[in-house]
């Protein structure tokens, strides 16, 4: 419990004098006191609400004889700026600073007034547009006020006079007859709850604001609140238990509700919580947490109370004797328990400063004091403070305070003679009612009156009075105090109920802090959906939210339960931990005690069934523990057959069942909490994606780029701000937190979702999750994850491990091959590296890594691949090169040459079974390919062998003679040689005249060691007669040749030369004809006609042409004198 109030001296006895103060009023920093003799004392109050220096009051004025009789009650009508004074049964209204009489209501009260109550409210015509008014008169209410309505209820014996003002204008008063006298009354909007002298209550309903004048106030049926005597009798001891720190005994007998008239039957107004305004303001501020809108919204978990509030009328508090009961303004008590407060002694005065009920309790009668261990202070009056919502006790203050450590406020006025407590001089606190302008200010006044000296006989002697001030700590420090005890929620509830404008007036940082703590409380109360919504609207950084979850989900972010509060702006971890420990200790002790008791009972338990029943009954009676009471009830039925040891067994069974139920509940809660977390995280995913999208591409971090690991503590330091406010680096961290947690949440509750998450772009921290995936045997997912993060080394390592466990040879390498095939040129080192073992495992399959018909595979750099594969083995390299050359059309000479080399090597390999095949392939390649340098290849050739190869290469080099020589000499393959010549003849025009001749020469002029190859030569000349020059053939032919041998040749040659001659003739004739034709045409073209007229002038000499000889110039046909023609041509050329 916290102690929001403190008591200190405000006005010492000297300043007060001996004239008994009978009424007090606090208004606008003025303390106005009315006395028994009818005087008014006015004090100026300073520092009333600051904690910097103690409040003090200085006398401003004194109005002796202000009234003729004792002042009974004071009040203020603010919009009239008038002071109400009830004295001698009449009510008067005075202007405020001057106290000049404005009006008297004696015509209405007729000297019988005993009590008044005031209500001021703003009437807002529904259609009126809302507008701001500068008037500050209606300070506690909303400032915009079309109409201020004040109603004053004046109780005059068995009449109730109702006076009213609208905007300060006096209205016709009305009156209501009553069955009894009113002892206390309070307004709740348009209703007055009145307590009558009979102990009954009645509700007076005033006509609605706009009602016709004919409508009169009416009194409902009288009632007595359902606080039956039974409850009262029982409730006092029970109440004592509940009150805890309230000292003394309140068992006051003789609470009679008979016909006897009550002197007191208080009804205390309870201000309504001011949340309406909160909602209006909520929209204006962009930050709901600091505007305080969160204190009311349904989405912040308040709906239950909210619903209640909507339907509920206002409340009043009826106070009688030692009981205070909140009643609705229609007279119903609360349904919740407790529905009343039972004080240990009579209450003198009660008032409500939301959210507190403050009662001045009379000193308990001395007869009750002896025997009680309580200190002497219990004999003095006290202030009891209760919470208005829960009716739970909050604080008790002795009046006056025990002087053990005088508060600083008293220290300065230390001349004030504090009564010696040892003297046991009884105090009477006489007045508490602060007729202040409203119950809002956290300040009330109180006088206490010790009889002077020790002489009890001197009762008539002048009294010694002190005026005390009860100050309330600021909400801020109250909340802090509660919070330090772990009761943040209680603090928040106080704010909601407080007069501090429903919390609106708290500083924004505090409001936000409370909102954050409240969101945590929602989470702790298992209201996960609301908590998550709250986290989202408060922009709590995701790492904090995640840290609330068990280690399986939060991982390195995990925080002990005791540390959550600190994270959310509450108490430090060690404090919470200590508090929890205390709690456990206490529980443990209680359990121990309980056990002992059962043991004892068991020992005592006799065997006879009759007594067994008693045991059961004993258990039944005991309601100290819920388990036991449950058992007890069970036992009540079955006690006759049960042995007492069964009782214990049953207790154990019960406990087991309870534990099981609890476990089930926990599991369900856990599942819900994770579901909500998933919702939260997917929401955050979108938000961070949007935030990332707003960054410039250059500044935008990428999920796959490596990032140093951040510790949990670092991540928890991320600011609680909208994600768009974060730096790129922070954003990346948030994204990591979100996705990693999402991953773990999925793994914990929806493992099938892990796959999709791993496949799409994600920010999962691989280090955080890879172990988990491995443990869960989710290899494919892990591969996807690695792949997405470009962590291919890890992926292939994993693939290799997986291969070790695989039996099927195809499946052993398949996954790795498929993985590598998709990597592409950027990851070529990984591909090469891991292809090695695949080649070892399955050469043929491994080749597919490099030759599969896939875009990524084709994109691999061919040089590097070739080099790599050559290292693996020439066979694979050959296959690869064949693939790229034949299938992909690679033209690069390096590849062709390498393949040629490899073929050569293969041919030469000893015991090479495939050497023939290789040789053939080599020849094919050499013939078909144009992308190799023949000279180089020639250089690589072994000096012997491979004549075909050499021949081809020589041919490529244009060394046809060499090539032909090989065919003729080494290979003796005349057909090929001839074929060769034909090919050259066809392909190379420059070689046309000589190529056959070359071969013929080899045949007919062989190397010295070779025989003349007459046959092939003859067949050559006969089949290619037309391509060979005859003269040269004759040169080469030996001098003696059988005509028959060369007949074919000769015939062909002769026919051909004849042909040529004829052909030449034909061509010549055609040419002639063409020339003739051209000439004819030329003549035609050159034929010109000119007309010489009388006046035509020679363009050269500018004389008339006349009949002179002329010349006509081509091509434009100018005409000059003949003699001018040369000059003209010169000029124009």
């Amino acid at each position: 419990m916290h102690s929001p109030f403190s008591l200190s001296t405000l006005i010492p006895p000297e300043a007060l004098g001996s004239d008994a103060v009978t009424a007090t009023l606090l208004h606008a920093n003025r303390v106005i006191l009315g006395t028994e003799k009818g005087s008014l004392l006015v004090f100026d109050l300073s520092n009333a609400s600051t904690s910097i220096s103690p409040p003090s009051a200085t006398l401003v004025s004194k109005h002796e004889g202000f009234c003729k009789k004792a002042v009974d009650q004071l009040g203020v009508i603010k919009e009239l700026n008038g002071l109400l004074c009830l004295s001698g049964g009449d009510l008067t209204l005075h202007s405020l600073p001057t106290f000049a009489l404005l009006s008297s209501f004696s015509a209405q009260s007729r000297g019988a007034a005993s009590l008044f109550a005031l209500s001021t409210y703003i009437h807002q015509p529904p259609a009126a547009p809302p507008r701001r008014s500068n008037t500050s008169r209606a300070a506690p209410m909303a400032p915009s006020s079309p109409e201020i309505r004040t109603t004053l209820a004046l109780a005059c014996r068995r009449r109730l006079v109702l006076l009213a003002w609208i905007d300060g204008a006096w209205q016709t008063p009305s009156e209501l007859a009553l069955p009894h006298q009113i002892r206390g009354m309070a307004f709740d909007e348009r209703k007055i709850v009145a307590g009558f002298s009979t102990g009954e209550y009645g509700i007076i309903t005033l006509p609605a604001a706009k009602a016709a004048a004919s409508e009169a106030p009416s009194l409902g049926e009288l009632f007595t609140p359902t606080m039956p005597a039974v409850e009262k009798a029982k409730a006092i001891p029970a109440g004592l238990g509940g009150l805890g720190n309230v000292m003394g005994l309140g068992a006051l007998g003789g609470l009679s509700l008979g016909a006897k008239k009550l002197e007191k039957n208080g009804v205390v107004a309870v201000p309504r919580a001011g949340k309406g305004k909160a909602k209006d303001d909520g929209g204006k501020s962009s930050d709901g947490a600091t505007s305080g809108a969160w204190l009311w919204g349904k989405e912040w978990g308040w709906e239950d109370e909210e619903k209640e509030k909507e339907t509920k009328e206002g409340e009043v508090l009826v106070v009688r004797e030692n009981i205070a009961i909140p009643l609705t303004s229609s007279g119903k008590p609360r349904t919740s328990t407790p529905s009343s407060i039972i004080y240990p002694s009579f209450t003198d005065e009660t008032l409500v400063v939301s959210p507190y009920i403050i009662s001045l309790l009379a000193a308990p009668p001395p007869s009750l004091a002896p025997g009680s261990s309580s200190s002497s202070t219990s004999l003095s009056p006290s202030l009891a403070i209760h919470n208005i919502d829960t009716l739970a006790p909050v604080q008790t203050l002795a009046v006056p305070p025990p002087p053990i450590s005088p508060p600083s406020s008293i220290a300065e006025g230390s001349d004030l003679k504090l009564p010696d407590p040892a003297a046991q001089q009884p105090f009477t606190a006489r007045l508490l009612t602060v007729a202040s302008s409203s119950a809002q200010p956290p300040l009330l006044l109180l006088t206490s009156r010790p009889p002077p000296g020790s002489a009890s006989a001197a009762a008539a002697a002048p009294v010694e009075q002190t005026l005390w001030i009860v100050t309330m700590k600021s909400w801020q420090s109250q909340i802090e105090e509660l919070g330090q005890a772990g009761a943040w929620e209680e603090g928040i509830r106080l704010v909601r109920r407080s007069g501090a404008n429903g919390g609106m007036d708290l500083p924004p940082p505090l409001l936000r802090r409370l909102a954050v703590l409240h969101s945590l409380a929602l989470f702790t109360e298992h209201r996960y959906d609301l908590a998550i919504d709250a986290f989202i609207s408060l922009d709590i950084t995701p790492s904090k939210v995640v840290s609330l979850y068990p280690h399986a989900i939060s991982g390195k972010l995990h925080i002990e339960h005791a540390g959550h509060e600190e994270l959310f702006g509450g108490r430090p971890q060690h404090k919470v931990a200590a508090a929890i420990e205390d709690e456990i200790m206490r529980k443990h002790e209680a359990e121990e005690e309980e056990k002992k008791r059962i043991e004892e009972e068991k020992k005592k338990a006799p065997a006879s069934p009759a007594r067994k029943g008693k045991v059961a009954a004993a258990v039944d009676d005991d309601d100290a523990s819920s388990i036991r009471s449950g058992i007890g009830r069970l036992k009540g039925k079955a006690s006759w057959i049960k042995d007492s040891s069964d009782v214990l067994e049953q207790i154990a069974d019960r406990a087991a069942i309870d534990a099981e139920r609890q476990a089930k509940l926990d599991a369900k809660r856990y599942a819900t909490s994770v579901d909500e977390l998933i919702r939260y995280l997917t929401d955050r995913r979108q938000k961070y994606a949007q935030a990332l999208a707003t960054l410039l591409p250059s500044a935008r971090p990428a999920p796959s780029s490596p990032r140093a690991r951040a510790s949990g503590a670092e991540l928890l330091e991320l600011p609680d701000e909208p994600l768009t406010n974060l730096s790129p680096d922070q954003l990346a961290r948030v994204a990591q937190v979100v996705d990693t947690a999402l991953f773990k949440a999925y793994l914990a509750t929806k493992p099938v979702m892990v796959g999709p998450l791993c496949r799409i772009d994600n920010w999962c921290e691989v280090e955080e999750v890879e172990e988990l995936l491995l443990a869960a045997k989710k290899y494919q997912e892990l591969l996807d994850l690695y792949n997405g993060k470009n962590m291919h080394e890890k992926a292939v390592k994993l693939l290799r491990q997986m291969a070790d466990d695989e039996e099927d040879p195809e499946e052993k390498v398949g996954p790795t091959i498929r993985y590598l095939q998709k990597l592409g040129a950027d990851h070529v080192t990984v591909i090469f590296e891991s292809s090695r073992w695949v080649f070892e495992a399955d050469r043929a399959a491994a080749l597919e890594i490099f030759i599969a018909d896939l875009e990524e595979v084709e994109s691999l750099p061919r040089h590097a691949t070739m080099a790599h594969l050559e290292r693996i083995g020439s066979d694979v390299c050959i296959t690869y090169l064949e693939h790229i050359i034949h299938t992909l059309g690679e033209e690069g000479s390096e590849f062709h040459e390498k393949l040629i080399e490899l073929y050569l090597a293969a041919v030469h390999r000893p015991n090479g079974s495939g050497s023939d095949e290789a040789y053939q392939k080599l020849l094919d390649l050499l013939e078909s390919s144009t992308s190799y340098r023949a000279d180089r290849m020639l250089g690589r050739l072994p000096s012997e062998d491979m004549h075909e190869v050499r021949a081809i290469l020589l041919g490529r080099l244009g060394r046809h003679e060499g090539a032909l020589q090989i065919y003729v000499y080494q290979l003796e393959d005349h057909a090929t040689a001839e074929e060769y010549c034909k090919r050259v003849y066809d392909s190379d025009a420059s070689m046309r005249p000589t190529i056959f001749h070359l071969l013929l020469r080899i045949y007919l002029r062989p190397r010295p060691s070779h025989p003349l190859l007459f046959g092939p030569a003859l067949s050559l000349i006969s089949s290619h007669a037309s391509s060979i020059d005859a003269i040269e053939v004759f040169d080469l032919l030996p001098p003696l040749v059988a005509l028959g041998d060369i007949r074919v040749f000769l015939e062909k040659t002769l026919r051909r030369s004849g042909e040529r001659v004829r052909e030449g003739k034909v061509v010549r004739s055609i040419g002639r004809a063409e020339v003739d034709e051209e000439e004819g045409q030329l003549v035609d073209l050159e034929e010109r006609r000119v007309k010489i007229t009388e006046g035509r002038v020679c363009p050269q000499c500018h004389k008339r042409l006349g009949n002179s000889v002329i010349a006509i110039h081509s091509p434009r046909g100018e005409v000059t004198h003949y003699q001018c023609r040369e000059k003209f041509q010169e000029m124009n050329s």
Partner: protein
Amino acid sequence: MSSSRRKVLLKVIILGDSGVGKTSLMNQYVNKRFSNQYKATIGADFLTKEVMVDDRLVTMQLWDTAGQERFQSLGVAFYRGADCCVLVYDVNSAKSFETLDSWRDEFLIQASPRDPENFPFVVIGNKIDMEEGKRMVSQKRAMTWCQSKGNIPYFETSAKEAINVEQGFQAACKNALQQEGEADIYSDYPDAIKINSHDADQGYGCAC
């Protein structure tokens, strides 16, 4: 069953690369209209269509989404609470088919369905009216993929020629009904966000 008279609302999300014809399919199905003009969808929008399925009146809320990444910035919060997801690709674009995987994955993550393994999907290969030579994804390839993802129903459609469109959406509707627990279906649905989307020719607004 007596409760069959009650109204059922199904939320169907249509996903796929830009330009595959999501908007066109939806327009064909709901409005029986087709336009050759391409106008990128921005954010997301929905049309509703009432259909009778086994003598139950079902209101389908068809959510068309933006395929273009830059128009997706409006968030994908509406994935939540989906009853079925229609994945669309263009049979003439291999890429649009290959991205189906990530559309599906992204959907599962964002929608977080209760039973992701059995969540009803439907795959639609659109634009089969184009000449045969242009076709890049064979029916077989598509079917194999659908099978590997838990036997997703597959349809080849043309929004232009109104081929098979009805059947595709009908299947989406039936699967969603089958999948959802009866209890969920008949529980009260909150009113859908109202945007003037019932005229397909009007500009699409954002509903997020």
